[in-house]
């Protein structure tokens, strides 16, 4: 089974994240970034599926759209065990919204498929920066294949994929046949750490870099100017105010009640 995993390079959530002053897009250049943690589950799921189908040939291709540093997300995936990478890189892509991103991913997946047919496209449940969770659905539409989102447990038999979806009130298990676009949650598996061997092996794995021209996508269809939505203004969250420290001078309990009542907690 051949699988394409779509991954995103995002600003490190533990670092200082910000928007660009000029166009209010996420600053992806001046901050530390990494493979979106939620996408690690997608990579892990793909590796597990390919490893489980012993005997049959199968490859995991990781695909990302993003600036030069996004190659780090591919590298981490290759270190975990993916077989090859594709990086869609073009200055004109900056500021693309979800619709344009799904177009680029779809065209890149078609191009991957032209070389060797794919059975599954796996995405994470959301990006840790945009958190929209719309790209998998858009991607399935553009590819003209079925989509099953938010899978918590996946099993594959032949070309049938069984997917458990955990909702707030019910759990359902659905079956779908390949080709299929699937997104998986952070409950689906425990992503592996790369190993030293994986790190060394990744250096020799093929990574292709494709431009808009390689994909046949006109520049007018992507980027900030083509975006369906636009952020007009952004402001940093104000710094947290220092807490109030009350020294207990025998009236601690009363002052605690006073505070909680003042905040309408009691």
């Amino acid at each position: 089974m051949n699988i394409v995993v779509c991954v995103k390079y995002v600003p490190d959530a533990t670092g200082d994240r910000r928007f660009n002053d000029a166009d209010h897009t996420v600053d992806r250049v001046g901050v530390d970034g990494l493979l979106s943690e939620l996408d690690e589950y997608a990579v892990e799921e793909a590796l597990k599926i390919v490893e489980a189908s012993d005997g049959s040939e199968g490859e995991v291709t990781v695909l990302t759209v993003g600036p030069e540093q996004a190659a780090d997300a591919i590298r981490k995936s290759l270190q975990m065990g993916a077989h090859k990478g594709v990086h869609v890189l073009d200055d004109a892509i900056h500021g693309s919204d979800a619709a344009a991103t799904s177009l680029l991913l779809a065209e890149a997946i078609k191009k991957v498929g032209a070389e060797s047919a794919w059975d599954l496209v796996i995405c994470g449940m959301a990006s840790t920066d945009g958190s929209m969770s719309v790209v998998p659905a858009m991607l399935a539409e553009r590819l003209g294949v079925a989509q099953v989102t938010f899978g918590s447990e996946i099993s594959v038999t032949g070309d049938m994929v069984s997917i458990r979806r955990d909702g707030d009130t019910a759990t359902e298990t659905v079956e779908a046949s390949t080709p299929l676009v699937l997104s998986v949650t952070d409950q689906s598996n425990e992503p592996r750490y790369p190993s030293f061997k994986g790190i060394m092996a990744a250096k020799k794995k093929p990574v292709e870099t494709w431009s808009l021209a390689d994909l046949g996508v006109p520049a007018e269809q992507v980027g900030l100017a083509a975006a369906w939505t636009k952020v007009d203004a952004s402001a940093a969250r104000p710094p947290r105010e220092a807490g109030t420290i009350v020294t207990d001078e025998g009236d601690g309990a009363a002052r605690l009640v006073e505070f909680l009542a003042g905040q309408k907690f009691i």
Partner: protein
Amino acid sequence: MAVERLLPSEEAYDLLALTRDICAERLAPRAAADEAAERFPRDVFTLLGQSGLLSLPFAEEYGGGDQPYEVYLQMLEEIAGAWMSIGVGVSVHSLSSYAVSTHGTAQQRKDLLPDMLGGSQLGAYCLSEPQAGSDVSGIRTKAVRDGDAYLVNGVKAWISHGGHADFYLLFARTSDDAKRGLSTFHVPADLAGLSFGPPEKKMGLTASSTTQVIFEDVRVPADRLLGAEGDGMRVALSALDSGRLGIAACAVGLGQAALDVAVRYAGERQQFGQPIGEFQGLQFLLADMAAAVESARATYLHAARLRDAGRAFSRAASIAKLVATDAAMKVTTDAVQVLGGYGYTREFPVERYMREAKVTQIFEGTNQIQRMVIARDLLRRVTAEA
């Protein structure tokens, strides 16, 4: 705060990134609880082995990473910063594996090393005895050839991983010869007659077990002899300098961890209407702590690079061990001072760091022994020139 490192290759940066991820996600969150409960974290060694982090300084053909010592030691520093017991444990394990790697036959290396480097076989290093600490020549544990085995009797002391290890690297007396009386054996943990004393009640490193290892008529198969009979002293001495560098790196990691806690606290803790870090008295303390940690790091890295270049590094290793462990003691003590009353409680990690630092001045050659090694090396040169 991530330490800025200059590393020799791109894969070394990836390795350090992997190490930091594992430390932050899998080691640091449980260190305090396991230390308090005196729980031996065997599974962590399995994880490190599976990730390849126990294999770095060993040859590729036996499952090693073929990495220079300067990379291995910086990885070790990161691990010790997250959890000192694990850092020291990795150093001990590496020391035990090192003897097989350098003195084992091709067959022994092929049979034993992959599982050691992969983390499924955890090692313990049995050199010291109750009456033989710094003075190794006082070893009394005897190994007597008996057919196709050696019959071993004696007591080893201060053995890290005692009772938890899968193999014990044993130094035992095979003759009374002063220079060639010791031999080295790879002893599987499941041999009959092998038993362990109760865990020592230690001041620190409480998650790591330290016990006596008792040999009573243990039949160690003759093919478990490493090197020739009588090579033991040579094996022990050859591993010594590398082991000292391991402890130096661990001590720097511990000092860095204490410094990080102290700096964060000094920026947050308010007294007299401002963060205590605004006071020059605190600033000088923090600056001295940083200077101690960073100079200790530079010292062990210099020794490691000498080793990687194939040069003599014995004196440099002793200097690194001395400087780094004294720095760790000073910096962890000062970190408690920075945190004041809170630092003295078990709610914060710095009192533990301080307890853990103390032993680094003692084990792997006391710092008094290091000074002897350094001075003898200096004076030998003078004598040689005269």
